[in-house]
């Protein structure tokens, strides 16, 4: 049996933030996640680092939190934030009167709104609709959810925080009205065991009701599904918002090599991350007000995530507050040392974690102050290391690898390639992922599938959506001879199915042709479905 002070359930942004904060305050903590890190809501969003402008009119507090955290994450999470701007544009379809209200609200919240001449806007963003009436430059940016989580966990681990992925909570153990531990199951080995703790925090977002149910507690979390569309390339260089009351499909975020359009808001089951073709069509229609030629751009795939909206009352969807809720089950339901945290946004996850830890630590007798806003998540690479990296990686690959893996792992990658230059070969040509990087991530104890490697490298997330990198990646990990790399058919199917899931609702145009090529390679040439030849 493992013993720790705090168990955190949920490997998303909230849980990660709490693990890092507790670890930095010197509290022993273990985080458990039923899947891979960030496979829930925290990676299924725009990748937008809010400026707060979107919430300024309706929710001043949320807006202020956003702008504060925006500045902090740009500083501590340099490798995960693309330091671009966000541009709010008012199209002819948007209410003119809202513009003044919005400007006033942004001013009050301390969010800068620099007016942009339309000629300047079109120079910066040549693809934006020429019908735009006015535009403002705000400090929004793009943030890589997977990468930030990965780096938060790295930082937490350095401070002693532990993480167990593919570990599902099946029971909450309590004695005398107090939580004393959890019963968990390893999803791979199926082993069931207990972890003893003094405090339990459920940071499971839209799954909070289900986890609380394990202790017989009812809480009102309303999962609200948002779908997003990923386009094949950067159609804008800055985040483009519609200047109107927050609504569906009104944000475009240039994110890495792609652009993401979102989102929708539909009450749903937390495990439902499907998107219908109707939703896509609906979003495309709205998106055309921002980019008139939107349909000329190729859709790569769609994805969806569930917002963990918490409501003490009955509001849901866009009317529910984006604020977060920390529910002390001791006070509310008579089960002490148990807290559920839900609601909130990726942008403000650090501040949420700080507030939660400020509540939890005194219970544990810890009075240390939060320092998460002061310490960068990962170290900067030395100039010398970057030079060595540029010498061994193909063009455009060194900086990307450094951003994804951080200085420490990069140094190892460089050493590996210096020793064997074949490891510098690119496995994923769309996202420039080298064999060395795949090897290093596959060796990590949290990796159990090609999808796990994808989340840490962007393998298979580009134009070909796995057509050419899947067999290369499977071949690469197979040579590592790990338990999970033995069944290659399973590796193929898991990854291709996951890619296919996001493509199915957008099966037209070039993507349709791409899928047919993929099918030709895997189903026909490689016979991945093992159709036996029938003997006569």
């Amino acid at each position, binding site marked *: 049996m493992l013993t720790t002070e705090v168990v955190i359930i949920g490997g998303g942004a909230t849980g990660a933030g709490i693990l890092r904060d507790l670890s930095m305050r010197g509290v022993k903590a273990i985080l458990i996640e039923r899947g891979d890190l960030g496979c829930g809501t925290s990676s299924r969003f725009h990748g937008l680092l809010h400026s707060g402008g979107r919430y300024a009119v309706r929710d001043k507090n949320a807006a202020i939190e956003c702008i504060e955290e925006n500045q902090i994450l740009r500083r501590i999470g340099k490798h995960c934030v693309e330091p671009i701007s966000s541009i709010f544009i008012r199209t002819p379809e948007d209410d003119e009167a809202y513009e003044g209200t919005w400007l006033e609200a942004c001013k009050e919240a301390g969010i800068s709104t620099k007016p942009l001449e339309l000629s300047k806007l079109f120079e910066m963003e040549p693809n934006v609709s020429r019908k735009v009436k006015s535009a403002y430059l705000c400090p929004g940016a793009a943030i890589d959810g997977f990468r930030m989580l990965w780096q938060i966990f790295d930082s937490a681990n350095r401070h002693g925080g532990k993480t167990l992925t593919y570990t599902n909570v099946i029971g909450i153990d309590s004695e005398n009205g107090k939580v004393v531990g959890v019963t968990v199951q390893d999803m791979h080995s199926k082993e069931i065991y207990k972890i003893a703790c003094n405090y339990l925090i459920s940071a499971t977002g839209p799954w909070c009701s289900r986890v609380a149910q394990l202790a017989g507690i009812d809480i009102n979390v309303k999962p609200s599904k948002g779908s997003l569309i990923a386009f*094949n390339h950067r159609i804008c260089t800055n985040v483009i918002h519609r200047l109107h009351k927050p609504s569906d499909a009104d944000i475009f975020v240039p994110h890495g090599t792609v652009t993401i359009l979102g989102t929708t808001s539909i009450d749903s089951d937390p495990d439902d991350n499907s998107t219908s073709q109707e939703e896509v069509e609906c979003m495309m229609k709205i998106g055309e007000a921002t980019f008139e030629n939107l349909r000329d751009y190729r859709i790569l795939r769609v994805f969806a995530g569930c917002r963990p909206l918490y409501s003490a009352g009955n509001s849901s969807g866009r009317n529910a507050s984006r604020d977060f809720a920390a529910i002390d089950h001791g006070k509310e339901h008579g089960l002490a040392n148990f807290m559920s945290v839900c609601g909130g946004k990726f942008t403000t996850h650090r501040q949420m974690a700080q507030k939660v830890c400020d509540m939890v630590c005194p219970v544990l007798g810890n009075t240390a102050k939060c320092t998460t806003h002061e310490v960068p998540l990962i170290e900067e690479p030395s100039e010398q290391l970057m030079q060595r990296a540029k010498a061994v990686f193909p063009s*455009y690959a060194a900086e990307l690898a450094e951003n994804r893996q951080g200085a420490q792992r990069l140094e190892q990658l460089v050493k590996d390639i210096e020793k064997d230059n074949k490891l510098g070969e690119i496995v994923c*040509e769309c996202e420039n992922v080298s064999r060395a990087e795949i090897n290093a991530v596959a060796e990590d104890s949290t990796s159990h599938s090609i999808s796990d490697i994808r989340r840490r490298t962007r393998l298979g997330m580009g134009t070909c959506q796995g057509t050419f990198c899947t067999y290369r990646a499977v071949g690469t990990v197979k040579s590592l001879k790990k338990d999970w790399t033995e069944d290659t058919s399973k590796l193929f199917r898991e990854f291709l199915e996951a890619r296919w899931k996001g493509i199915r609702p957008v099966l037209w145009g*070039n993507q349709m042709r791409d899928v047919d090529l993929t099918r030709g390679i895997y189903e026909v040439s490689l016979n991945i479905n093992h159709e036996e030849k029938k003997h006569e």
Partner: protein
Amino acid sequence: MAKLKSDNPDQCISCNICLTACPVARATRKYRGPKLTGPALTRLRMLIEDQDPMLQYCSNCKNCDRVCPSGTPISTLNMKARSAYYKKNPHTLAEKILSNNELMGKTITSIPFASTIANLGMKITKAAGAFEIVGMSSKAPFPTYAKKSFSAMFKSISQPKCDKKVLFFPGCYVNYNEPQVGVDLVHVFNHNNIEVLIDDNFVCCGSPMISAGYIDKVQHNADINSKILASYAKQGIDIITTCTTCALILKQEYDELFELEAVKEYNVHMYDAIEYLLNMYERGELKTDFKTLNKKEIYHTPCHLKVQGYGKPTLKLLNKIPGVEVVDADAGCCGLSGIYGYKTNTAEVAAIVGSKLQKTIKESDAHEGVCECNICRLQMQNNTGKKAYHPLHTIRQAYGI
């Protein structure tokens, strides 16, 4: 920066067919192929900047564009990226010199004896090793300059008045290096009762500048040439080229690079000289009073002709001439690809690419080579022991004019 239509890499489905057709990727591992350099890295270049030595290795031969089942303008993405690279990095001296072909040609052919001195000077400079110093290969087959430009020679030809007129775009090579091709064209067309017009306001199509990474400068040339071409096309006058590269730039690349509307007005009226004559032959309009010639020729298809997708008219037409046997070399790209074959760093790749063609020609029992492209012909003559001519040369010979 000029607005470039081909910023959009979305047509590519990463099938890699282009890689199998790329002569450069086959010749050197320094180039990782058209798909990666073109559409794949176009996406990454929108995200990060980096030194990219691969950019200089695309020869712009356009075999990638030809085989692409998705219609991706791969080579244009490459040229666009190369041009963007030179916004922040200096051009080599060789690129500066080689992209100035028009000015050099104009100057040298307009002064008496200047060409003799220039050609001699080139030999001496080459012998003295000065080519290497500026980054040009002394092994590559450089063209020589003509004594008199084509436009000067054209003025002294008295043409019969004909109802049918065509406009000829001679391009720099015919104008300054091998005016004989233009002269042959005028005679062959006149023989078929077609008068040839030229327009003194034409400028270089811009191909060497595109290859050397000066796309912005090309826009100026594109504006001038496309306006002239459109004005003739509107009068129903067909436009004839002999240089397959000029043709490709005028017909297609101006539109890919600059979205010039005028291109659509004239490009359906543009024909390669031999394509035009073959069309006439097929309609029964071409004079067939050919003499028997008794020669065997080996034909090389220029890459820039292949990509235009109108077959191999030369192979068909020359074989109609009694006593002429034309065989297809079918030996891939000549490698030179304009200035690519002359810059030291790419000349060695060009030499590898072109070696198959050279070997094929050398070992062939044909008397001479035949090819539409001027630069290809230089490679066909380079250490093969055979001369290479434009097909108009044989046609004029057969007419006995």
